[in-house]
């Protein structure tokens, strides 16, 4: 079964042979091709190049063509502020600037950046669409309404609900038209990305989102495509209402516990996606953290109706090795690493008698210095620090892709990678020491050995 079919089957809540992996590469794709976000989001060549690069690097089963929740708002007249390392943000709301809802027109390919976005989507679908599932992301109706009206919408829900209904009705039309344009461009799945529904109560959701979102998902289904309802933020109280909107899939971030969402989705026959932690794990964590988080998500999600993905679009500077580590976990390349300790019981690893060895022994535990940048730097630091001390020091890299290395790591008590142990003692975890600092630690160990 190819990658694309894996995603489509999982979205349709079917059992699959391997959990599909869909990294939400949005502005991070700009980083992959070394351009800033403003240039990326305004240039279809860059978008195609960035997504193609993500395909090459991360072996995904699906990818979004673009992750920009401001395209519709800009086409409707909202001003945007572009950034170097973030998606654009809305800086003015047309309905605050004197326009009425009746003045607004559903945008077409001629408006705003739609021509760029749709051109990129067509090219991505034609080059990658037979291999992986391509997602077309539309701004969900409530988030779009918030872009158009600003925070006043929260107060109008109470004071002038009919006005909010009129706006939501207009946003429904925009969503349907954008979904149709993406489908005609060739996408397999339309995701209605509505993060701001996490800001409203279940009763407001039911009144102001449910009718409009339900019709959008029904429309996507009528056009023969799959749908997903993306939310970010603490939407725990709205997950059930999201399922009732009848999407094929919902996708959540780390603010909603995956097991909680799984239970509700199972009840409604809706598939689920999520929810590797974006900031703590993907942006600031180590490859080890990413493997563990992905494995945990896959354990909970299971191989029926589950798509592994980050909680939302990945930040620009997400380390490439972190995403690759997730890919490794998905494809079983590092599965031993996170298996239960008991599965390693048949592996016999004898640690040296560090104290009585003639040489100082340095164990460098890595994912693989050939593919993981921090691991590479750590190995390079060891190599440089031990230079000229070959008669007194012996160092070895242990890649946790190998079972014996995992067993060694467990015996040493190492929990994170990359880690440097000197004579069996954990000395540096994740943070790469300077060559001078590491050399001093090695010299201390040599001195200690002399005194023994």
């Amino acid at each position, binding site marked *: 079964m190819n990658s694309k079919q894996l995603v489509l089957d999982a979205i349709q809540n079917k059992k699959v042979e391997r959990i599909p992996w869909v990294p939400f590469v*949005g502005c991070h794709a700009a980083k992959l091709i070394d351009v800033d976000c403003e240039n990326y989001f305004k240039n279809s060549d860059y978008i195609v190049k960035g997504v193609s690069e993500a395909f090459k690097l991360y072996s995904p089963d699906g990818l979004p063509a673009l*992750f920009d*929740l401001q395209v519709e708002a800009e086409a409707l007249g909202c001003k945007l502020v572009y950034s170097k*390392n*973030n*998606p654009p*943000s*809305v*800086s003015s709301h047309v309905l605050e600037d004197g326009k009425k809802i009746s003045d607004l027109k559903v945008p077409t390919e001629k408006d705003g950046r739609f021509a760029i976005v749709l051109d990129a989507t067509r090219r991505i679908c034609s080059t990658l669409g037979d291999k992986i599932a391509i997602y077309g992301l539309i701004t969900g109706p409530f*988030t779009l309404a*918030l*872009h158009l009206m*600003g*925070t006043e919408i*929260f*107060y109008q829900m109470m004071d002038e609900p009919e006005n909010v209904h009129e706006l939501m009705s207009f946003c429904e039309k925009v969503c349907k038209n954008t979904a149709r344009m993406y489908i005609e461009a060739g996408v397999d799945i339309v995701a209605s*990305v509505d*993060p*701001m529904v*996490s*800001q409203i109560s279940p009763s407001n959701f039911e009144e102001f989102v449910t009718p409009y979102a339900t019709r959008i998902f029904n429309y996507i289904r009528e056009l023969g495509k799959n749908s997903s309802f993306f939310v*970010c*933020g*603490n939407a725990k109280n709205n997950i059930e209402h999201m399922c009732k909107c009848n999407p094929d899939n919902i996708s959540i*971030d780390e*603010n909603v516990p995956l097991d909680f969402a799984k239970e509700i989705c199972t009840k409604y026959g809706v598939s689920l996606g999520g929810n590797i932690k*974006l*900031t*703590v794990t993907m*942006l*600031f964590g180590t490859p080890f953290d990413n493997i563990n988080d992905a494995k945990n998500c896959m354990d909970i999600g299971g191989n029926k109706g589950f798509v592994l993905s980050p*909680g*939302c*679009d990945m*930040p*620009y*500077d997400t380390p490439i090795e972190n995403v690759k580590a997730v890919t490794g976990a998905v494809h079983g390349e590092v599965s031993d690493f996170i298996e239960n300790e008991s599965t390693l019981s048949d592996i016999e690893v004898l640690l040296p008698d560090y104290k009585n060895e003639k040489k100082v022994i340095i164990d460098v535990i890595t994912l693989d210095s050939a593919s993981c940048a921090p691991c590479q730097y750590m190995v390079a630091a060891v190599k440089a620090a031990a230079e000229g001390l070959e008669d007194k020091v012996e160092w070895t890299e242990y890649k946790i892709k190998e079972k014996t290395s995992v067993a060694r790591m467990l015996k040493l008590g190492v929990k994170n990678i990359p880690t440097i142990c000197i004579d069996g003692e954990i000395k540096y975890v994740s943070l790469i020491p300077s060559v001078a600092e590491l050399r001093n630690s090695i010299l201390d160990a040599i001195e200690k050995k002399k005194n023994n």
Partner: protein
Amino acid sequence: MSKITIVTLSQPCSACYITEGLVREMFNKFKKEFPFIDIEYIILDNLREVANIEGIEIEKFPAVLIDGEQVTAGSVPDKNQIIKFIHHKL
């Protein structure tokens, strides 16, 4: 005088980024209405920097603190509540 501190991540996800924009907008309007309030923005490049900010209890962003007391985490504050808070502090 009340001091309002808005803490954000330098690279948030799209949802947090939208929320952050709305929070900034809201407080820019407050600043016009209540010129005596002091608004400080802290942008975190790394989560470890949270430890240096007094009053942060929930590490969800944008976080809003008024006089060192966290009032929201990852959500758009209710402007009426914020106004009450400001009046209360007067």
